[in-house]
């Protein structure tokens, strides 16, 4: 009996209060067109909501998009909420407006990819393909 190839599952979420999700949707569509299953949660997500969605959807990848400037406050809380649920094997990446000075801090807490405005979506696709953990 054959087992179907499993598409990569990605959660795209917008933490915090800003209401612009154009960028997040562009990324979601690009990943969809690259053959991935993208769970899009919409705007104004709390860290708990994001972590719970990642758990329930059993995604391999979580991408956060943020424009509000609250990344240094919110991203560590997302990481912590994921850990407290035992979700410790997802690939994390971030996009949106993140000043260069903050990139290292964000990488240190586990975001392997940080993509600024104007990133070619092909770079994000390649990043996800190359780094998404395999699921047995």
């Amino acid at each position, binding site marked *: 009996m054959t*087992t179907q190839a499993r598409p990569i599952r990605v959660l795209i979420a917008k933490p915090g209060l800003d209401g612009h999700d154009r960028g997040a949707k562009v990324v979601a569509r690009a990943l969809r067109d690259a053959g991935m299953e993208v769970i899009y949660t919409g705007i104004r997500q709390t860290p708990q909501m994001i972590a719970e969605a990642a758990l329930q959807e059993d995604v391999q990848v979580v991408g956060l998009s943020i424009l509000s400037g609250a990344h240094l406050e919110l991203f560590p809380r997302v990481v912590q909420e994921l850990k407290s649920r035992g979700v410790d094997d997802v690939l994390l990446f971030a996009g949106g407006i993140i000043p260069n000075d903050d990139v290292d801090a964000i990488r240190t807490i586990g975001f392997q990819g940080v993509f600024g405005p104007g990133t070619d979506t092909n770079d994000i696709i390649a990043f996800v393909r190359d780094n998404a953990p395999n699921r047995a």
Partner: protein
Amino acid sequence: MDTNALVEGILGGNRRALARAISHVEANTAAGREVLARLYARTGHAQVVGITGSAGAGKSTLVGAIAREQRKRGRTVGIVAVDPSSPFSHGAILGDRIRMQDLTSDDGVFLRSMASRGNLGGLSEAATGVADLLDAAHFDVVLIETVGAGQDEVEVANAAGTTVLVANPGGGDEVQSMKAGLMEVAQIMVVNKADLAGADTAMTQLRALLSIADLGPWVPPILKAVARTAEGVPELVDAIDKHQEFIRGSEHAHEERRKHAQRQVIAIARAILHREALSTANASGAIAALVEEVAERTRDPRSAAEELLETVRREWASQGERE
């Protein structure tokens, strides 16, 4: 997690084990099949409800409203929201969580988005399996949302004990087209968006269609709802309960269970047969030559199909002899 951990995790209320097991069932892995086989005896407790209807009918909004009403009644709710995969990229954007955001912070709710993955009738098998996992994980209610567009979706509806068909006002043509299959599998009809003009007309049309449908002892009620404001949702949940009582408690209970089991076994057998026959046919390389002949009109499609199946039968017979 190995299958023991998955099975024990699910029975013990571990949400991560549940989520992992769903992925296995969705991908039809050996582990997924084993977990399902081991848990099946622990299912049958949940009321499994299919919510189907055309794109944009308000199914997700309604599923959210039903879930909230069920939570008020003290019941836990598992939700499976199925959306089509792109036939081109095989990817999907699954956006049903957007309409159910508040439910994400509720421990009594588990929501899983599923792409149809266009997998040869396997959707119904997968959705049934996921519903069984949620059932075994002690959710009182399991809601399955699917777009009522094709055979697969009708089969998903078949997987549910109670299927709710969601229609809209002003969708006269849409109501007409529902005749094809969906009418017969729905036990409850609801005209959603009843805040818009034409709800009563839509109800009248549904009643007219029902009057010529081939019904058993259960007569599907036709209700009105405004999913956005939850108007009519308590009545809808009452109707679902009533149908569940009908299939569980009444003199028809045994017959209903038997019919349901028959639909499931046949749907899964059909999916497996389809998959295995095609995979044998592909491996034999017979398809390409036959297709070429049909394209050149040197052979008719029916005889090409029969020849293909003959190849599959021969291949299976020789596999049988080798074993």
